[in-house]
Structure formats: C-alpha cells, structure tokens
C-alpha cells in the first residue's frame, strides 16, 4: 500500500508515492533516477549507499524512505555547487583514489561528515570514519590520501 510523501533531496522537494517498507536507496535509484548512490550489499555492510541525512552519514539501504520526511537528504549528486566539484571529489581525482569506482560515492559521503566535524583529521580518524565503507579494489591508501588532501585544500 503506497502513500504519498514529500521528501527533500539535494535541496529539491519531491512528492512521490512510496510503500512504508521501501528503502531510501530504492527511492533514490528507482523512483528519482539518482544512481550516484550505489546498491552494493543492500544489508548495511559495504557503505556504497551512504548518503547524508541532517548532516549525518547513514546507509540509505537500511533507511526507510518514509522516515526522512522533513529531514534534508544529500546525495553525491548534491555536493557539486554551480558546476564546481566538492573539495573531496576533486581530491579523489587528484590523488587517483578511484579504481573501479563503485565505492567512491559512498566513501566521499562518509568522509564529508568527518570533514564537517573534524576539519583536519589525522590518519586514524580518517580510517575510523571510513571503516564502514568497503573498497573491493582494496585501494584504501589513496582514499586516505585523498581525504587528507581534501582537508588540506579546504583549510
């Protein structure tokens, strides 16, 4: 049984019909075509589907779409402003932190919460913050380098 809800994603309000058990990930990808948010394990174990709600990183695969009414959601598509890449996006390019790319969007969204709360994180803080994001290429060193670079470039 679907219900009509209104949710705010990347500053834009969408009205759409969702079933109470639909995940936010499903709504983002299948209803709104926002496919930057990836579907990996779909059970809260890989981090590909990370988005921000009220500024906090969460797994959209285990977030109920109904529950985000009135709470601003930011996805990877929403962090580029006026065509200008987010410092994290640019740093991932510059540091070569992308291999297959499947984990990249989720990892950037997790790192985004870190940099908002800890502008100059040390390596252990970075590794702790992205511990919930798996890179199947195991390219963690360059991911850590990219987050350090983004922090330095934002300082």
């Amino acid at each position, binding site marked *: 049984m679907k*219900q009509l809800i209104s949710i705010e994603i990347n500053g834009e309000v969408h009205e759409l019909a969702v079933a109470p*058990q639909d995940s936010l990930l499903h709504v983002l990808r299948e209803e709104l075509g926002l496919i930057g948010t990836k579907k990996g394990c779909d059970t809260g174990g890989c981090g590909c589907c990370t988005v921000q709600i009220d500024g*906090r*990183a969460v*797994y959209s695969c*285990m977030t*109920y779409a109904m529950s985000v009414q009135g709470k601003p959601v930011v996805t990877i598509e929403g962090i580029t402003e006026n065509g200008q890449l987010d410092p994290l996006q640019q740093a991932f390019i510059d540091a070569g932190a992308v291999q297959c790319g499947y984990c990249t969007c989720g990892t950037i969204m*997790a790192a985004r919460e870190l940099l908002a709360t800890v502008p100059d994180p040390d390596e252990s803080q970075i590794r702790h913050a992205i*511990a*919930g994001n798996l890179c199947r290429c195991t390219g963690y060193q360059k991911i850590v380098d990219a987050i350090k670079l983004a922090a330095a470039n934002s300082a």
Partner: protein
Amino acid sequence: MSDVQNYLSPHRLDDAVKAMAGGDTTVLCGGTDLSPQTDSGLREYAGTLMNIRRIEGLSGIDLIDGQIRIGALVTVTGIGNSQLLDELAPVLVEAADQFASDQIRNAASLGGNICNASPAGDMIIPLLVLDAVVELSSWRQGTVHTRQVSLDEFFTAPGKTVRQENELLTAVIFDQPAESFVAHFRKSGPRPALEIATVSVGIGGRLENGSLSGVRVAMGAVAPTPLRARSVEATLEGKTLDAETIRAAAVDAGEQATPIDDVRASAWYRRHLVCVFTEEVLNDVLEN
C-alpha cells in the same frame, strides 16, 4: 514479504502506546536491524509499521536524583558523544566506539539494540555491568503505564525478551556509579568495523586498594542471551586483583560460557577468547 498496511510516526508517547495496544505493530527506529531482518525473511512486518523516532521526550541523557536515564531513541553516536556518560559511565562510551560503523551508529538506537536481543548486542554488555533496568511503557486504563525490568531478567532467548507486544521500551536507567567504580569492555571480530562480536566481555566494580567489590561481569555471544556471570563475580568479589585471582576468574569465565559453533567462530575458540578477554579486561580495570 507481507505488505505493510499502515504507517505511523507519532510525536507523542501516549499516541504510540495506544497504537500498540491492539498488537499487530512493528516498531521502527533506526531500522538497522529491522531492515536486513525483514529483507532476509527472518522477520515479517505486522500490519502497521510505526516509526518511533519522532516521539518527544525519549532522546535525552539525564542525571536525575542519582540515576542516569537514557531515552530509548538516543543513537549509539549520541552515547559515544555524551559528555555526561564520558564522565559518569565511560564504559558505555567505550562500547559505543566499537559499535558497527559511523553510518550505523548514526541511525541505531539504544532501545533497538536492546530489543533486538542479540546475545552479542554491544550496548547490552556494558549496561549489564552498570546493573541497568529498562522502562517499558504501555497503554492501560486510559493512561501510559510503565514498569521496570532488570536488564539481567529481560532476555529469554536469542531475539526474545519479556517485553509484551503492547509494550514499548522507553528508557534505560541505572544508578550513578560510585566514584571508585571502574569498568571496561572488549569485543573481538576479524574486522573492527561492522563486526558482530565473536565474543565480548565487560567487567566493572569499585576498585579500592587493588581489590574489586560490587563486581559485575557480563559476557556477550557465549550463551543464548547476554550473560551475567555471577560465579565469576563471586570469584573476584573482595579479592586482591593479583595474577592468581585474575587467572582464576578467567578460567571460571571460560567454564560459564556455553558458546555455539557458527560461521563466526567455533565454540572452542569462543571459550578460549572469553578466558583471554576476562584476563585483559581485568588488567584494564586494574590499570584504570
């Protein structure tokens, strides 16, 4: 998958417990257990899905008349960031820091971790060490009725508790620990983040002149429910925490554990880890 007929998101506790009075309600908060359990078919949705996240008054961490009260909706991140808990019950902050990943800590609620009743529940072990009680609320005779159940008596089997279908866990309460109270927690798993504990151990007590009193020992993932190990507590009570006492407690802890073989570890390995962790946590307690 059964189809949910109705979605509720009450702002008031009385509305929530009224809705639960008839049964047939699935409670949603962070969704980090509910979502994978329903997706995999382990659990079915009831006719009504009720999101309790927006109920007012259940999101605080307060010290009231010598008791610490944590609302059921407080997230694990909220516990990890609480200055009050860091000062008065740091073992909870220590456990919160080892809980899953940032993304799950940001969503998962304390009440949910307890009601999920996993023998490995990471917040349950330190709360047993703090001798916490849970507050259960229900709608009865036109008003919100509450009762308290000792956490030690709350769990009956994996995933099962004494909570009735019409009851909502609304808070966790424990006495402010004495100034000399020291407690620590340790869990294991091959991956630090997102790991369901292979074994976890929490130990606390009043540390005075190198000996512990009022000792509480809790162990996770070694029995059908989170376990208070009373015989280990008796082994430690009032004794000087020397190598011999610590060794005796570790051996006893291994004997109290009744773990299973599963995909995460063999029973033999779990029993071994319980001994090692008991020793390590006691050394942490001694060093404070």
